[in-house]
C-alpha cells in the first residue's frame, strides 16, 4: 500500500473517491491490479495507457465473451486502449456500489455492436453468438430465439430494442447485479 500511495496525491485520491463508487483503499487496490498487468510501464507513468491486448489479460476480462467490447466502451480514445482512469471507471461500474441504472446504461452500450443506439437483429445475433461460445445455435434456432426476445421486449414493435425498452427489462430482472 505504501508504494501505491506515493504515486497518487491526496487530492487525486479524493477525486477518484468522489467520482467512482469506490473508497480510497479500493482505488489503490485497483491500481495495484492495473500495475500487475504491465509493471514497468505503469511504474513510470501511473496513468499509462495500456493496449487492449494487455488489458484483456485481466482474468475476468480474458474469459468474458464481451471483453473487447467492454474495453472499447470504457476507453477514452474509443479504440480499446485504456488508461488507469478508464480501468477504474470500468471497475467502478461493475462493482456492487453502482446502481442498476448505471449498469443498464453501460450494458446497453456494450451490447450495441454497431453503435446505432438500438439493439437490432444483428446486435442480438452477435450477442447470442458470443454467449454460446464454442457451440453455435442453428440458423433456425437463432432466428426463433431472436424473434422470442423481440416479442418479449420490443414494446413499440419497430424490430429493435431502444434503450428505454432495454432498461425496462433490466429493471424487472433481479439477476442483473453482475
Amino acid at each position, binding site marked *: 500500500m505504501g508504494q501505491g500511495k506515493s504515486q497518487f496525491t491526496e487530492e487525486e485520491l479524493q477525486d477518484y473517491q468522489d467520482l467512482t463508487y469506490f473508497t480510497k483503499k479500493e482505488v489503490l487496490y485497483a491500481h495495484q491490479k492495473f500495475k500487475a498487468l504491465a509493471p514497468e510501464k505503469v511504474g513510470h507513468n501511473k496513468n499509462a495507457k495500456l493496449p487492449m491486448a494487455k488489458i484483456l489479460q485481466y482474468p475476468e476480462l480474458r474469459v468474458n465473451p464481451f471483453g473487447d467490447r467492454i474495453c472499447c466502451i470504457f476507453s477514452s480514445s474509443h479504440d480499446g486502449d485504456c488508461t488507469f482512469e478508464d480501468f477504474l471507471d470500468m471497475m467502478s461500474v461493475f462493482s456492487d456500489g453502482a*446502481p442498476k441504472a448505471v449498469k443498464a446504461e453501460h450494458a446497453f452500450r456494450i451490447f450495441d455492436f454497431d453503435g446505432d443506439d438500438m439493439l437490432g437483429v444483428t446486435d442480438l445475433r452477435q450477442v447470442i453468438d458470443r454467449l454460446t*461460445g464454442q457451440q453455435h445455435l442453428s440458423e433456425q434456432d437463432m432466428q426463433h430465439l431472436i424473434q422470442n426476445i423481440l416479442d418479449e421486449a420490443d414494446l413499440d414493435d419497430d424490430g429493435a430494442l431502444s434503450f428505454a425498452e432495454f432498461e425496462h427489462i433490466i429493471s424487472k430482472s433481479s439477476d442483473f447485479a453482475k
Partner: protein
Amino acid sequence: MNDTAELVKNKMSGGERRKRTSRGQGWEEAGAEFYQESYPADVDLEVWQRDPAHIATLLPSKQSRAATSKRVRGEVKPTLRRRTSTRSRYSSTARRTSTAHDVHMAMLPDLSENLSNEERTWEEIMQIKAMPVSMMQKKEMKAKLQTATKLRLQGFEQLKWQRRKVWQQMKSRWKETYSKLELWRHSLKKIEGNFGTGVVAYFLFIKWLMFLNLFIFLFILLFIILPTLVLVPQESPANTTLVEECSRNYFNLSVDSSFLDWVQGTGNMERTIMFYGYYTHKLISEDGNMHSYYNLPLAYIAIAVIYLLGSLAVMVKSAAQGFKERLVEGEGQFYQYCNLVFGGWDFCIHNEKSASMKHKALYNEMKACLEAERLEEERQNRSRDEMLKLMIMRCIINLIVLMVLSGALALIYYTFYFSQERLNKELLNPNTELEYLYKFILEFLPSIIIVCLNLLVPNMFAYLVSFERYSPLFIVRITLLRTVLLRLASLIMLMFSLKDIIICDEPDSCSCEDHPKCWETYVGQQVYKLVILDFVTHVLITFTFNWPRMLIAKYSKSKVAKFIGEQEFELPKHVLDVVYSQTLCWLGSFYAPVLPLLAMLECCLLFHIKKFACLVNSRPSSTVYRASRSNSLFMVVLLISFIVAVLPVAFAIAEIPPSKSCGPFRGHLTTWSVVVESFDQLPAWIKSIMFFFGTAGFAVPIFVVLVLCLYYFYAVSAANKQMVMVLKNQLVLEGHDKQFLLNRLSAFIKQQHEHQKVMRQVEMTNLDLSNAS
C-alpha cells in the same frame, strides 16, 4: 455527425417556432421551408438516399441520449436551474423529457444570476459518477463545479449540510469495514469465480442458517441455561408428593456409562443441561427465598415460542422479498429469453474452464427453452389417444411413488418397534462386546434406515419421472417435491412411532411399564442421534465415497470410470440436506436445548464440507442456476419444513401430559397449562383486554375490514394491469405511426431531390441555350 446533430437540433427548435407561425400556409410549403432550413440540401441528401433509415437517428428520442453525454461537457450551469429532480436528473425518464426542456432552455434568456449553494454543488459532484462519460470528462466536470461561484450556506443550513457530509462518510467507512469482516469472504469469492452466483446463493443460505441457529442458541443460553446454572431452586416443603418422589428416583438412578454415551446422549449425559430433563419445575431465585424469582417453566415455553415465531418472521421476510420480485416479474410477463440473454453471463467468472462450462450451460439453456416451447406446441397438438395413454402412465407412476413412500414409512415404523422390543427385552444388561455392538446398532437402527432411504429413494424417483414426459422445469419441481415429501414423512413417522411409547397415563405410578421414565429426554435423545448420524453421513459420503470417485475420473481414462466418477454439483439435493438438518434442529430444540448449538457447529462444518464437494469433487453444473430463483426456492422449502417440524412439537405441548419425573413441567396436566396458570395471575384489566380480543365483537369487524382491504388492493392491481395493456397497445400503435411517418418523410425527400434535380437540369439547359444564342 455529432456537429450536424447539434446543428440540426438547434435548427429544429428554430424550425418549430417558424412552423407555428406558418400554420396558415399549406402543409407542403411549411414542410418545405422547415426541411430546407433543417436539412441542408446538398450535404446530407446523399447520405439519406443511401440509407433512408438514417433519418431515424435524428429523432428527438435518440437526440436526447446523445445530448446527455454532450450536454454535460458543455453546459453544466443551465441544468442546475432544475430544482425539482436533482436526484433523478440523469435517470432515463429525465432524458426523455429533457429535449423539451432543452428547447425551452435555448429560447429563454441566460439568467446567470441563478447561482447554487455549496450543498447543491456537493450533490451535483456526487452524481457525476452516474454519467456515462470517461473519467477525464468527469474530472473536468468536477473541477468546473468546484471552481464555479457558489453561495456559502449560513448558520443552521450549514450545520445540516455538514452533518449530511459526515453521515455519508461514516456510512461508506462502515460499509468498508463490514465487507472486510464478512465471514468466509475468500471462499465465497473462489466459489463465485468458478461456479457463478447461483451456487454462491446456496452457500450464503448456509451462512444465514448458521447465524439463525446462533441467535436461537444465544436466546436459550441467556434465558434458560444461565438462570438454571446460576440461580437456586426454591426449597421444597417436607411433604412428599408423587412428583417429588418420582423426581428423586429418577435423578438418583445410577447408570453405567460408556463411551458411546457421547453419541447417544444416554448415561451421564442424560441428566445434564443438554436435555429437557435436567430443568427444574420450581421457581428459582438467587438464594432460595422467593423475594424476587424467575419463573423457569414459563420462561422455557415462552422462549420456545419466541424463537419459533422469530424464525418464522425472518423466513417470511426473506421469502416475501423473492415473492415480491416474482410478482413484479409476473405483472407484465416473465422475460425468460431476455433475462437469459442479457443477464445470463456471470461477470464474476475468472477461470477458463468455468467460462467454457458457462458457455455450454447457456447454450443448453437456450436450447432447452426453445425445446420447451416446441414441446408446448406439441402438447397442444397431442391427439386424444396420446393424451389418454399419457394420463394413464402418469397415474401409474404417481401410484408407484405413493406406494414407495408408504413402504418406506412402514419400514421405519416396524424397524422402530423391532429395535424397541429387542432393546427392552433382551439387551437390558449387555455383557459381551458383541452384545454391546448389537445394542449400539439397534439403538441407531431407525436413524440408519431413514438415512438409507433418503439416499436411495430420490434416485428411484429421478428414474421414474422420465416416463412421465413433463416439461423440464416441472420435472425438477416435482422431483424436489417428492424428495421433500419423503424426508419430512420419514420424520413424521418417527415422531408417530414415538407417540405410542410416550403416551401413557397412569396417575398412580411414575411411569408406565416398559416406557421411559422421562419421555421428553428420550425424544430429545432420538433427535440428537439423528442429527449426529446425519452429519457423520455427510462427512462419510463426501470424503470416502465421492472423493475417490472424483479421483478415479481424473486419473483413469476409461469410459466406465468417467461414467462413475464425474459428478455435478446438483443444487436441489444439497439444499435438501441443509434444510433437513435445520428441520431436525427445530424439531428437537424444545426437548434438547443444546441442539441449536450443535446445529450451528454443524452448519459451520457443513459449509466447508460442501465447499470441498463443490470445488474438488464436482465439475460445474450444466444447468444454469440463477441466484434469485434459487433464493426463493430455498426459502419455500425451508418454510414447508418449518411447518412440518413445528406441528409435532405443538401437538405435544398442547396434548401430551408431561412426565412426572423430570423437566420443568412435571406435575402439570399439560405443558401449556403453565402458560394458562401464569395468565390467570395477571391483573384483571389485562385479562379482560385479552378476552376482548377473542370475542366475536372484535373478531368479526376486524375480519370484515381485512376483507375490504384485500378487495381494494385486488381492484387497484386489476386496474393497473388493464392500464398496462392499454399503454402497451398505444405504444405499438405509436411505433407504427412513427415508422409510417419516417417512410413518408424519406419518400418525400427523395421526391424533393428529384424535383430539384429536374429543375436544375432545366436551368442548365436554359443557360446553355441563352449562352449559345
